[in-house]
């Protein structure tokens, strides 16, 4: 079991490759990526479209398997885990925020936030969810469904959902990409503020250089490799 209070990187990627088949032949999405995150560190991954940023995040979070290379997440070698094993590893300790929010459409805001807590078997999931929605300023939107919320509100629910279980590691994939300027700024503030408050390490994939500049470290990707 990974203990964030003990020394050791919560995430390391060692020579990770991903090749996908396509009609025109195999496509190399990632080409020998080495990457790591320290406890509580905030890392921004930037690069042009198609450079492999989101794929890197998916592999790092155990959502996707690499074709080659090693991924170590919270002290576990992911290649040794099946899909269910990786899901159990994420429970309550690894969270994701997506550009398209990916809220569960048939659950209310409160239920969406409570879902990962419930999956992790945490007590008082409802109360925790309400508290977190309060922290993101949505205390009056508890019973609203995703389609009844604006984009900014949906992303705030997603952020509350991601952080409610106090993860060791938060992955955010273009979290402000679908938002207007004001909402984007608000959500960005919340991400950094709440990640710091929960002491979660943060891996932030973004196009936004100003947002990336708020991170402790910026990693640039191009052509499936880390450029700098």
């Amino acid at each position, binding site marked *: 079991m990974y203990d964030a209070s003990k020394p050791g990187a919560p995430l390391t990627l060692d020579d990770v490759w991903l090749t996908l088949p396509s009609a025109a032949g195999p496509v190399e999405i990632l080409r020998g990526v080495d990457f790591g995150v320290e406890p509580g560190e905030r890392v921004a991954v930037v690069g042009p479209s198609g450079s492999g940023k989101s794929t890197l995040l998916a592999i790092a979070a155990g959502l996707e398997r690499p074709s080659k290379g090693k991924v170590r997440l919270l002290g576990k070698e992911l290649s040794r885990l099946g899909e269910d094993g990786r*899901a159990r590893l994420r429970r309550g300790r690894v969270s994701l925020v997506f550009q398209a929010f990916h*809220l569960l459409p048939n659950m209310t805001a409160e239920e969406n936030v409570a879902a990962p807590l419930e999956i992790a078997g945490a007590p008082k999931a409802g109360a925790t969810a309400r508290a977190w929605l309060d922290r993101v300023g949505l205390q009056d939107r508890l019973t609203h469904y995703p389609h009844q919320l604006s984009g900014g509100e949906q992303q705030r629910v997603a952020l509350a*959902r991601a952080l409610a279980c106090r993860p060791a590691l938060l992955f955010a994939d273009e979290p402000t990409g679908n938002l207007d300027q004001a909402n984007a700024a608000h959500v960005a503030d919340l991400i950094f503020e709440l990640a710091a408050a929960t002491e979660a390490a943060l891996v932030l994939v973004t196009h936004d250089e100003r947002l990336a500049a708020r991170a402790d470290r910026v990693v640039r990707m191009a052509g499936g490799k880390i450029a700098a």
Partner: protein
Amino acid sequence: MIPLSLRFAVRELRAGVRGFRIFLACLALGVGAIAAAGSTAEAFRAGLASQAAEILGGDVAVDMPLREFTPKEQTAFAALGRVSYAAASRAMAEAPSGARRLVELRGVSETYPLVGQVTLSGASSVQAALAPAGDAAGVAVEQPLLDRLGLRLGDRFLIGNVPVVARAVLLGEPDRLSRGFNLGPRVLASLAMVRGGGFLSSGIPFGETARIALKPGVSVAAARAAIKNTLPSGGWRIRDRDTAAPGYARLIDQLEYFLGFIGLASLIAGGLGVSGAVGAYLEARKTSIATLKALGADGALARNTYLIQIALLAALGVGIGLAVGAAAPLILGALVKNELPVPALFAIYPEPLARAALFGLLAAAAFSLAPLGRARTTPPAALFRQELAGRIRIGPELIGALLAAAALAWLAIATAPTKLAAAIMIGGVAGAFLVLFLIGLAAARAAGWARRLTAGPARIGLANLAGPHSAAHTAAPAIGLGVALLAAVVLIQSSLIAEVTVAAPKAAPALVFTEIPGDAAAAFDAAVARAFGRPLTPKDYQRFPIATGRIVAVRGAPIDKAKIAASGRWAYDQDISLSAIGPQPADAGVVAGRWWNAAYAGPPLVAMEESAARAARLKVGDAITLDLLGRHLDARVAVIRKVNFGSFGPDFTLILDPAALAGANLRQVAIAKGSPAEEARVTRDLGGSFPTVNVISVREQLQAAQQLFDRLTLAVRGAAAVAGLAGLLVLAGAIAAGARARAKEAATLKVLGAARWQVLAAYAVEYGAVGAIAGLAGVALGFAAAWPVVVKVFEATWSVDWAGALALIAGAAALTGAGGLIAALAALARRPAPVLRAE
């Protein structure tokens, strides 16, 4: 603590069941049909059981063929309780005008009926109706006899040579259902009249039945034992309330299974709708499933979340089906109760409903579990790459689906009255379904190839037909299965109707004459020839001696029914008609052995019908022993022959050489063909010269059979159409599942400048092709199913109702094409901009 999967499932279900209307309808339709069939059958069974005493006419009935009960036997019966006697025979009724008609004559004792009421019009009681009036006996007759002979109540006429007066119209007898098939209108008379009129004489085929209302304290088992001790062995039969109307009980079993089978076929056809709805639902929930997994849910939690939803919806669909299936017979019963031929107690019966529910749940499992596996196998990476959908892989869900399908088949066979037939039917449906599915796949592939040769709307239509969401492998097999069932029913019926309206009248005799005195046979031939007014040839008149006998031993050993094959047991467990013929007749149908010479006078030889011979593994040269005219006769099988019963010839199971029965002065039976005018003339003229000869009109029997078919046709086709409806539901489901993609496609086409007619034409091509494929394949499979039934089971002439078959193909194409047009109109009705923005 509520399990997490149940909590998540309930939250998901709050969105409503909109996407599951077809799922619910498919399940409800099949379950409703099975439940309605079972409930209706149960209502008839309960009706028969509730009136078993009336139907039987007492607690116990004893049937004695060909003789009356002796005084000793009557004394033994009287010791058991109150007894009524009835003797049944056939005779010719003749009006003063000379009009004649065969009647079913029944003489009853004064104690009749012991149970229930005889319904009469024109007389206050049975005794009043049957009381003599001068030299004429009183009788109650059915209205058709009065109509046929031009008589009214109070008129005198003859039955045989006995003068009678029609006192009452016979509307109903309480024990009518427990008696058999009728060749003519019924006449109820006193037992004294029937006995005194010579209708119970030796040589005439008649039977007497004693019905006993048991004394208090005498059980049916005790009565049965006492009767068995009283009667000599052989011939007679005892029935009690449990076996009051065995023929109807069998008919109800078969009817239930046929209707239930159609319901099951509907469930299977609708299964594609169930499977499609689950697949479409999981496709729409792909992102949710992937999100759940990104949040830490494992495959089992994701699968169980959706499994619980599908299970709850399946329970709802089954519940709707049960409600419909339970209510439909109640409503139908209220509407037609007075017209039913069999008593029925319409109510809600739990057992058939439970059975229907089990069928529905197993079908839901068989068709839902495999697509549900996708919830477990959809990877969280689907959030990033939409093309990643969970595939159906070998896993607990697929194994569960296969087990449910096997259990469904087992249940269908286990609950069937005839297991082998049920297994063939289930296997046939499964095979047909697989063939239709493969045809759909092949059609989709062919459409993909053919689209290169086309342009414009046709290319769009064919491209859609070849695409991943093609209706060719969803709606086409389901509609095809419905069409196949309908086609099989239409073709079987058309062949059987053609048999009774065209083939049988050509092949069968028009008239059968029975009870011709053996010593007046030549005079009878002359009388018939006179009435026809022309010389008769073997092509339109044949006469044979006839006797009744029973096979009592085979190869020297007494008959052991257990060793006789069921298919031919009829020849060994009852008296059968036989004849004695010298030279080999035309169309003798010899399949083994050689016919004897006309002058043969050696040890008795017999020609035997092949299925009867096969049942006891008899071969040429084997010995059989007959109980004939009160003595045992050993004969050697000389010929095994194929007999086409109902043809114009000596269609006897057994034919002996004439020397074997020399000196017996056998009664004769004759068959004749002629015009309706000749038939009427000979029937009338024989009244003067041979009043005791019964004239049976085969033409009338065929007409009655045709009327029966006509009445059944609509009901049977209506029932089969339920399976067709399931196919249309699947089509609707396929259209609904693709509605969003279709709206986008139509919007894109409009943006590209396509006119409405071009979009409509593209959809008409696609769905018209689906309907045509389903129609053609379905009708072809219907042919394959109907042919063996018509030719091998009914041994009828194969006659194709081309108009019906073409109508089915055109109907399938038109209905599916119309479905496609409706889908196109719905897609075109949406403005392109919002549709494209939504994507």
